């Protein structure tokens, strides 16, 4: 045995300490990148998402400054230029009262987009609170809260939306006519306010479910235990540790809720339950245009195309955002 060991003479050069340059090559690591920068890198690589983002930005820009650039006001009735086809003067043409359709479509886009964004914010607030409480406390609290979500889920949404709209209209109306109603609410009008109510009351369930699922997984993590050992209150644990750790999913769901809300608003306006005249939304424009569909098809084309573009681009962008913020969800 010992003889054999001696015969295996190893080259001493193999055991020299590594030089600095050799050490440096061993330390090549991926540079440390933060969560947001990493997500942005992934998002930028996604051509569809970046294209959609560009379209969204263009539509938003048009909705904000488009009506200002136009020489006509959205409710300005131009006698003698009724039902004009698209031309240099009126790029989208005019409607049956001679109002400029370009201005009206841009105003409609403005209304639709703000409905989408405000609804997404309200949905997020309610959904996050509900989901976080349900997931964090678990047990009976969770069971009861999830059954309530199941009930909200199982009702035919559009039907309830219409019923709520009709039911809410009168109380909101009386509130707005009372003296102490704030001015900006009066400007919004009964239709829009009740749309917000309806969206906030019915569309938070997805958000709540996703937040709950995330928090169920996160609350078992050791950093939550660590906060408990330090004596952190439940509120601190939920809002300082748990919710910030599922912000990626929250953003994705909130983004995907925007087109959903826009669609509901357009649909309600289309069946005459949304914004009131002379205010325009993309849905109410489509509805007015439907009457003259055989003679003046362009009147329907522009608002309908705008709705489609907005919904499609936000949906595509939301999908890209999901892949970027939560790469594990990607197949």
């Amino acid at each position: 045995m010992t003889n054999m060991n001696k015969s295996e003479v190893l080259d001493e050069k193999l055991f020299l300490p590594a030089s600095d340059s050799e050490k440096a090559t061993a330390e090549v690591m991926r540079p440390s990148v933060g969560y947001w920068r990493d997500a942005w890198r992934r998002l930028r690589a996604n051509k569809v998402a970046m294209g959609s983002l560009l379209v969204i930005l263009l539509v938003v820009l048009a909705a904000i400054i488009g009506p200002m650039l136009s020489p006509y006001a959205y409710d300005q009735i131009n006698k003698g230029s009724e039902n004009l086809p698209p031309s240099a003067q009126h790029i989208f043409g005019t409607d049956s009262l001679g109002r400029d359709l370009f201005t009206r479509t841009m105003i409609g886009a403005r209304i639709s987009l703000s409905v989408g964004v405000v609804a997404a914010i309200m949905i997020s607030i309610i959904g996050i609170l509900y989901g976080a409480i349900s997931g964090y406390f678990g047990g009976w609290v969770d069971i009861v809260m999830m059954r309530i979500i199941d009930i909200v889920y199982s009702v035919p949404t559009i039907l309830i939306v219409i019923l709520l709209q009709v039911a809410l209209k009168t109380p909101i109306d009386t509130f707005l006519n009372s003296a102490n109603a704030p001015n900006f609410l009066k400007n919004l009008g009964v239709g829009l306010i009740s749309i917000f109510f309806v969206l906030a009351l019915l569309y938070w369930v997805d958000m709540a479910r996703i937040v709950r699922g995330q928090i169920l997984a996160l609350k078992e993590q050791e950093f939550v235990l660590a906060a408990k050992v330090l004596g952190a209150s439940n509120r601190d644990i939920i809002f300082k540790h748990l919710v910030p750790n599922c912000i990626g999913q929250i953003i994705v769901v909130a983004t995907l809720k925007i087109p959903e809300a826009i669609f509901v608003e357009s649909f309600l306006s289309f069946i005459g339950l949304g914004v009131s005249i002379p205010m325009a939304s993309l849905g109410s424009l489509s509805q007015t245009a439907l009457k003259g569909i055989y003679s003046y098809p362009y009147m329907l084309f522009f608002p309908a195309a705008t709705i489609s573009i907005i919904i499609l681009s936000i949906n595509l962008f939301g999908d890209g955002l999901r892949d970027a913020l939560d790469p594990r969800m990607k197949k």
Partner: protein
Amino acid sequence: MANNESKTSPSGYNSARKQDVLIEVKNLKQYFNIKSSLGKKATVKAVDDVTFNIYKGETLGLVGESGSGKTTLGRSILRIYEPTAGRVIFSGVDITKLKKGKLLHYRKKMQYIFQDPYASLDPRMTVSDIVGEALDIHKLATSKKDRAEKIRELLKLVGLNTEHASRYPHEFSGGQRQRIGIARAIAVEPEFIVCDEPVSALDVSIRAQIINTLEEMQERLNLTYLFISHDLGVVRHTCDRVGVMYLGHIVELVESEELYKNPLHPYTQALLTAIPEPDPEVAKKRNRIILKGEIPSPVNPPSGCKFRTRCPFAKDICKKEIPEFKEHGSGHYVACHFAGKL
């Protein structure tokens, strides 16, 4: 507090400890209710009737294989889990009965260092927020400036670069993260820290550094440690006394030198022969006791002595009677019917 000076002997043995009991654990039980796949309810007895004292200034080691209840015991003492029964008395106060508001005061005195430095730091918080959270909860900083200054001091104390305070945990290595965890634990100026395998997730080359940091903190801040580990080598180096756990019970508890010299419980004897021996000649001569089978399920533990199913010396009495946790020689506690006779 004066017992720090008494820690003079090279083995780290603390002679003054006998006087001051910091924590008394009395008949502590931690059961978990689980549902099996068939919907049957069952109880896991993760910690079952454990009694021992922790003396001020000492490092008490806790060893045992996976699933023996070491971590659960550590967490029950801190009331991370609500103990099923028994008492934990911290400087004369039974903390198992305290209401939430009163407990906060004791949260400040008892801290926990986690095994996995990757999971125990919130990935969305900067280092200064992680350490600062402890200060915020117990209102230890008087102003924003004071808070930043305290965080800087803490980071320096555990050997981290103070310029790294605004970084996120993922930018650090395992050893550095564990230092962040230590800084968070000592931020509230605790008296007692449960170290739950603080080095087992780290590179071997880093372990010694972290253990040295822990020992340095202990000396500077008069800390008492409950040191959970499955590495008997580390435990021998760091601990004054060692408790050996098996299936939710402490089977042997003794000063660490004595444990390595004169193990009385057959399970401890088997564990000690499993320590890797660097010298192959010595290793060859050594009689390794290899235990048969796996650790039994804590849902359905054996009757009598929990270790009897794997014990090479098991007799009839082991099946019938639970061995008492008795003193054999000064401060040497063993739970075995044949302690001293094997």
